[in-house]
Each structure stands twice: as C-alpha cells, then as structure tokens.
C-alpha cells in the first residue's frame, strides 16, 4: 500500500488527508511537533479569553482519526532525504514515504529587534506561544504590541480581556494600511478607539526592548525616542514560511517552498501546500505566498485530488476573507485594494452610529463590480461569487443588495439608504429590488 506522509497537521495538511481518505485507501500519516490533534489556529485567542477550552477548538473528536485510518505522529521532522524518500524524526524511527506533502505553515517574523529574545517578548502563532503568553501575562498590567495587522489586533483583544493595557505600535499611517483603503482603516481605527485601555500609536516603530535585571522586559523605546513601560511585548509583524529545516536540502525554496500550478515541488512525489508554499508564477491577482486559512484548505483539497490520481491544478476562485476587529466584523469579496487600480472607483457608504461601512469598488467606465469590503454587515458569499464570475455591474449588485444581506432576521436594514446615496452620488437610477429567496437569484443569469 502506498504511504502518503504529511508534515504539518494544520488546516492544509488535515484537509489533504481527509480528501485523500475519501477517495482512496492509501496509508496516511500526519506528523506534527505542535500537537497530536488538529486544532484551529484561528481560534487560539478564544482559549486565552476564556470563551473556549483548548479541546473545543479541535474540530474533530479524537476518535475521528482512528476511524478514518489517519495515523498521527507527534514528533519533529529534522531532515528529509528526498533521494531515499525517508524522513528523519527526533524521537521516532525514520519513516519512508511514497508521496510527501509539506504543510509546515508559518512562523512569526522577528526582524532582529534589539532585545527581541528577552523574557516577556513573543509572537503568537503556535499552541506553545499561547501557553507562553499565558505565563508571560500573568498579573501584568501593561503590554506593547508591534505591527498593526490581524494577529496584532487579536492579541490586543486578548490582552484587554484580562485588563492589561495595550499600546499598539503601528508603522503605517493608518491601521492595517497595507491591506485596507484609508477610509476603511480609519473606520476600524474609530472602532478600536472605543475600547478602553487601548492606545494606538501610528507611524511608530520599535527601536529597542529594554530589560530589567532578570532579563525580563521592563520598557521599550520607539524610533521616535518614546519610552513605554511594559511587562510584555507582542511581536505581530507578519509571518513567514516555516521551512528552515528544509533549507539545506535540494528542495528548491525561496521565501517559501517553490511550487508549480499543481502544487508539486522540484522533488519527485513531493508537494507543498498552505502557508509554506510559494507559487513560481502567481495565480491571477494573488500573491505568491498566501497565508490564510481558506487557501490552505483549498490547496489541501487540490493536492488530494492529484495524489489519488485526478491531477489537478490549484485554481482559486475570487478572493474572499473575513476578520473581526474586536466587535467589528469584516468580510471582503473580490478585490478592494488599499490603493485603487487604474480605472477603478469607489462607492463608500457608512453609518457611524450603527458602525456599518460598505466599500464597493467598480470600473469607472464599464461599471463592472470588482469587490467589496463590508464592516458591521454580513453579506452572502455565494451571490458575490456569482456576481464576480458573471461580471455583474455595480448597479446590479446594488439592486439585489437586500437578497445578498446575510444578517440575522429582524436586523436593521440599510439598503434603501445605500442605494439612494449611490444614486445621488453617481447620478444613477438604481431601483432596489425587494428581497427574494437567494436561491432563486442564484439561478438567474446576470
């Protein structure tokens, strides 16, 4: 029986294993040094905040793996010998593979800040980091976070939930400014400012971490010379592929493991998926490395098909993502670039009191809808996917906005105001269609 070995039990590796099992009888082994059972990395924050226990963020019950004949090994792969197709592990005897899937994820960036290795300074990526954070933040009252992205804002929420005051150093002029247009990022900032105990310092960078006698952080200095006392420093300045153990092998790597459209690498029978993969030629408008949950899942689905014999290229559809900034929910469909592309224009509607902002992007001339950022209002993925596929116009999208609404029943509706405001701003005459059953709309051609 062929042996498929997967290094990494994150969403990418586990999805691959599940789909291979669905379609084949191959022997499957997943190796991870982080934890025996798959857990949801995106939910680590909720364990710290006391919303869930660690076992609650494990999507499958422990008997699932045995039942599906997926062997789990908790150990670290130290070296891969691609010639003899063997893995050397720290504690387990060497393992032979017929096909190898590398799904090793990421690690937090450390940019060589002065003092980054003192006690109380850490990133947040793994379960180990979570445990460390638990220890590092016991009984403290002030923390500094570096890097204004999604993990940073999650760390801020975590710390605040334990009444630890947070100073957030953000290099850009606005929050998450490399991903969000200014209007949107200001809106998020406005929401963040409603939370007591959180101080945002824009255009500030970490210069040095200063320890006390026991090598524990006592304060930090910013590039502008500010001294901020703190007992914890969270490093949240992005992540990069976790491939150091492969660097010395003949596997071709750059920032990540270089992969072809079908996720194969330069080594025979070796594939890479998830955070650690880097596409030789980026697909569509996507970056070469994509470190999000969904892409990991989709790459896992794809590579599983190839492994069971239906060779498949990775073909992600339109971009989508979501996040939550404290209590403000964010979803995006299609592309809303931080800096609009040529010929793109925006329609922005917001209601500060209700904390809702919708940012539509469309083509100036053809009026083709390109993407949307939505804050404080849930929208239906299926319909936006369809509209993007069929190159619907912005007018069409607005017309059916009621049907695209994914808010719970009885929630306030804003569609009328939104459409009116669009008509006024662009001198248009869009008429809002009454709410239909969305399944019906899925069948209509645009």
């Amino acid at each position, binding site marked *: 029986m062929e042996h498929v070995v997967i290094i990494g039990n994150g969403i990418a590796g586990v999805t691959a294993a599940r789909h291979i099992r669905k379609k084949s009888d191959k022997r499957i082994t997943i190796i991870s040094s982080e934890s025996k059972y798959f857990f949801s990395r995106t939910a680590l924050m909720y364990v710290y905040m006391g919303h869930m226990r660690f076992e*609650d963020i494990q999507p499958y019950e422990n008997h699932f793996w045995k039942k599906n004949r997926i062997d789990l090994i908790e150990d670290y792969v130290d070296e891969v010998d691609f010639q003899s197709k063997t893995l050397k592990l720290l504690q387990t005897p060497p393992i032979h593979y017929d096909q190898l899937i590398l799904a090793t994820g990421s690690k937090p960036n450390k940019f060589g800040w002065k003092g980054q290795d003192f006690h109380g300074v850490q990133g947040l990526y793994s379960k180990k980091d979570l*445990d460390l954070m638990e220890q590092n933040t016991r009984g403290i009252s002030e923390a500094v976070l570096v890097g204004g992205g999604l993990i940073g804002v999650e760390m801020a929420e975590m710390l605040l*939930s334990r009444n630890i005051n947070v100073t957030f150093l953000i290099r850009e002029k606005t929050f998450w400014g490399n991903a969000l247009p200014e209007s949107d990022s200001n809106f998020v900032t406005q929401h963040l400012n409603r939370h007591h105990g959180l101080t945002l310092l824009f255009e500030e960078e970490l210069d040095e971490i200063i320890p006390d006698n026991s090598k524990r952080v006592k304060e930090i200095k910013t590039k502008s010379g500010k001294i901020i006392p703190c007992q914890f420093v969270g490093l949240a300045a992005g992540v990069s592929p976790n491939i150091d153990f492969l660097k010395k092998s003949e596997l071709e790597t750059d920032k990540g493991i270089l992969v072809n459209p079908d996720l194969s690498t330069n080594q025979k029978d070796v594939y890479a998926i998830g955070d650690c993969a880097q596409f030789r030629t980026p697909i569509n408008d996507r970056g070469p490395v994509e470190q999000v949950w969904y892409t990991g899942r989709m790459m896992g689905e794809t590579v599983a098909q190839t492994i069971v014999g239906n060779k498949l290229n990775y073909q992600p559809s339109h971009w*989508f993502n979501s996040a939550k900034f404290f209590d403000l929910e964010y979803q995006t469909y299609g592309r809303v670039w931080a800096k609009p592309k040529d010929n793109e224009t925006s329609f922005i509607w917001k209601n500060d009191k209700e904390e809702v902002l919708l940012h539509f992007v469309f083509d100036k001339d053809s009026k083709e809808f390109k993407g949307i950022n939505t804050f404080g209002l849930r929208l*239906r993925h299926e319909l936006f996917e369809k509209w993007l596929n069929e190159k619907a116009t912005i007018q069409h999208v607005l017309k059916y906005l009621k049907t695209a609404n*994914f808010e719970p029943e*009885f929630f306030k509706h804003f569609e009328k105001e939104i459409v009116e405001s669009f008509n006024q701003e662009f001198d248009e005459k869009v008429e809002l269609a009454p709410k239909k059953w969305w399944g019906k709309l899925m069948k209509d051609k645009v």
Partner: protein
Amino acid sequence: MGTTINYSIAGDKTQNLNLMQKLGLTLGAISLFILLLTWLTGLTLTPNWLYLFILLFGFSAGPVLYAIGTYKGLPAGIKNNGVYFNSLTNRGALGWIGAIILTLFYVCLYWYGDWFGDGTGAKGANEGTVALFDPLSQFMRGAPADKWFLYGTFYTVAIVFLGVKFMYKYRKNRYHFIRTVVVMFSQLVLAYILPYVLEGLNATAGGYYSLNPVNAWPLNSDFLTGYRIDARIAPENQPLGVAYMVWGIILFLIVTPFVTYLVGKRWYCSWFCGCGGLAETAGDNFRHLSDKSIKAWKIERWLVHSIMVFVMLMTVAVMYSYFSKSEFKLMMYFPAWVGYSLLFGLLGLAVLLFLFLYFKGKGKSRNFMLVGAVIGMVMIISMLFSYLGNSSQAFGINSNTIKKGYGFFVGAIFSGIVGVGFYPLLGNRVWCRFGCPMAGYMGIIQRFKSRFRITTNGGQCISCGNCSTYCEQGIDVRAYAQKGQNIVRAACVGCGVCTSVCPRGVLKLENGPEEGRVNDNPIIIGHEGHPTLRR
C-alpha cells in the same frame, strides 16, 4: 503530548467587582438569605408582604444590576470573556453549590412541600416560605398561596428579569431582543397572570385543568387524561373549558405542525415555551456546558424519541380507558364507539404522518420514520385486540400506573431536577434536548418537512468552534459549517446564538423553499478547480 496549561488564572483583575455588581450581588444575597431562612427553619416572617417584596425585589433587581455592572460601557458584542475561568460557569465550586441548591429546591417542591410551609399551619394555613406569597396569591386569585404558586412566581421572575439581563447582554441584536420580549410576555401573561386570574374568577370551579394556552400536548402530557377532560367539559367551567379543549386540540394537531413547517420548532422552543424561556434567560450562562460528542447525540435521539412515543402511548392508553367507562362526563353524551373511532383515527393519522415524512424526507435518518409508522401500527393492532376482547385497558397495562411512572421519572426527575437543577453542570437545555416529548414531535417535522434551516456563508468558516461551544442543544454546528453544509437538525431550537457568536458571519437562520435545504454533499465555494465544485 505537550503539557496542558491551566488557563484559568485570569489575572485577578478580571475578578474585581464594580459598585453596580456589588449592589446586585448584595440584593441577590439578601433574597437568597430570606429564601434559605424561611425554607430551612420554617420561620414565618411578618409582615409577609414586606419580606415578599424584598425577596422578589432582590431576585429581580439583583441580576439586572449585576448585568448592567458587567456590561456597562462595553460596546455591544459578544460577552463571553472568562466564561471558562468562572467557577459558576465552569463547573467549579460555585456551579456545584448552585446545582445542589436548585436540586434540593426541586426535591422539596415535588415531595417535601412541608419544608416550604405549604399548608402546614393551623387549619391548613401557610407558614415559612409559602406564607410570604400569600398576599400576592390573594391579590391575584383570591386564595392563599401554595408551593406551586411559589414556584410559578419564582419561575416568572427568573424569566422576566434574567430576560432583561439577556437582552442587555446581547443588545443591538434584534433577533434576541424580539424573541426574548415574546418569551417574557408568554411566561408573564399567558403562563402566569392569565391562569391565576382566571382561577380567581372561578374558571376551574368544576375541576382543575391547565389554563396556560401555550402549554401544548404532548409537553402537557396530562392534556387528555380523564379528569382533565372532565374538568374542561364540566358545566361550571363553561364556556372557557370547552374553548381550552378545542384550542388545545387545534394547537397540537394544526398549529404546531404547520408553524413548525413554516419556521421550525423555534417558534415554540425559544419564543413561547416556559421551559425554553427559562433556559434562554436564566440558563444563558450555562449554554456552553452541553455535551457536543457524537455519543451524546446518539443518546439524545434514543431518549427524546422514546419519551415521545411513551407519552403518545400513555395518552392513547388513558383515553382508551376513558372511553370504556361510562361514568366519565363526555361518555354521557357520546356512545363509546365514537371515542374509539376517534382514537383509532388519530393513531391512523399518526401512522400516515410518519409514512408521509418517510417518503418526503431526505437523508438516511428518515428510516426512523418507518419505525415510527410501525410502532403506530403495532399500537393500533394491540388496541384492536383489547377492543375486541372487551378489555378496559388498551395495551394490557393499567394506564394509571404508566402515568404515575411518567410523572415521577419524566415530570419530576427529568424536567425538574436534571432539567433545571443541573443547569450549572450539564447545561441549560438538558430537558429540551433529551426529554421533552413536544420537542421530539416538532423535531421530526423540523428535520423532514420544514422550511427552516441554518445556512452557512460559502467558504467563510474558520473552524473556530464558537458555534458548537455555545450551542445549548449540543449540536456540532462547526462540523456542518466547515463543510459548507446547511444545519438541518431535529434538535435545533433556533436560539440564534451560534449566529451571534460566530466571528466570521457564517451562520444565518432562514426559512425558505425546501429545495436544496438538506445539502449532504455541499460545495465549498472559493475554489474553481475542485471536482465537486460547481461548473
């Protein structure tokens, strides 16, 4: 495996109480003290109206003040910080103490009413705790209180004021706001004030029956027993009695299946029902304690449906005996065969309904509908034998014995002690999930013939587990959401909390066409090339 860290020492700061919280706790503690004092010592406090006022004020204002103190100044949103660090909500010492007090309360209520001073005084006057409730009872129904009046009052206070707390906790969420207003109204007006006021107006002079118009059979398992039917048709109880009789039949035969078809069982379980109302309001802080394992799901399906079948069987048996005895009131007007045909007709209808659901339903579990039909058939046949053999017992067992057993095991132990007493240990919906025959009945309709489902939002799920954790019915919502599958489950009471706690906006409770409602092989979108995907 790595070491398991205890995440429970949440920095002592979060434990610090503010003034409002302290005030709330103080009021609650005073009330608890009065309750325990009168309960455990039998002391009769005078003037009783004053102590009653203090008691109820503390139990109502206390939690509301505490909630305001807790959530004040925080932006609207999900308030689950520290749920698993709190001794009350994490099965810690406080949780156990709470469970023990509640359980003892139920034990005394059901079997040792004397402890509350129910009619223990001279000439049957009340003492102790029940005596405190006399003024209110006199005011509402012109009679002294009894232990059930005490219970009803506590129950109503809990739903109304913890309902206020619930609405404040989930403020800005209009779904929770509206359904909580409805459930508060339903408990306060329909289940509490209306019955007692009617009672005060002598509506039950000719015999007692439930005056709560939303207490539907089979939850109200007594609905069709002989003495209740007699009470409803007693001349002294007219015209209300017959009206309640007719309404009760319409409620279980037409309203329940039809509304459940339209919007799912939530209309009852989390909008109108008293048990559900208490679970949603008083039990809100314990919803995460429900068991999410597949094993628990299996137990649930067996238990809840067995109890449902049992209630139906019991009802049929009781009615059968009723028709065979000419001393019952109804039988003075009807020949017995009318009653029997009615009974056979109803059972036949149930069999047809099961067959209908079997043919209309989707998924493997519809086979259980066939089992239901067979059970119905067996009941018809065995009853036929009894009928032909002129026996006065439908299934060869004494219907009263069955009823007593049900009252003890299901009525008292299950719905009271385990159902509410164990809130802090097993979660707030144990009864609704494992025991309630009404839930079983509506669950079958919801699963196989309904417009209700929870839709998942394309590919947005991050498998975080908030939805499953906070599902009071122990449904592993995440298992569906991460596959892009709709949640169509008999147990779902449509509380909408999974939707609220989902940080990615993945879940939506919806009523819509049945086509595509059960999507066993869903497509997760976002991925063009996948062979199971569209196009």
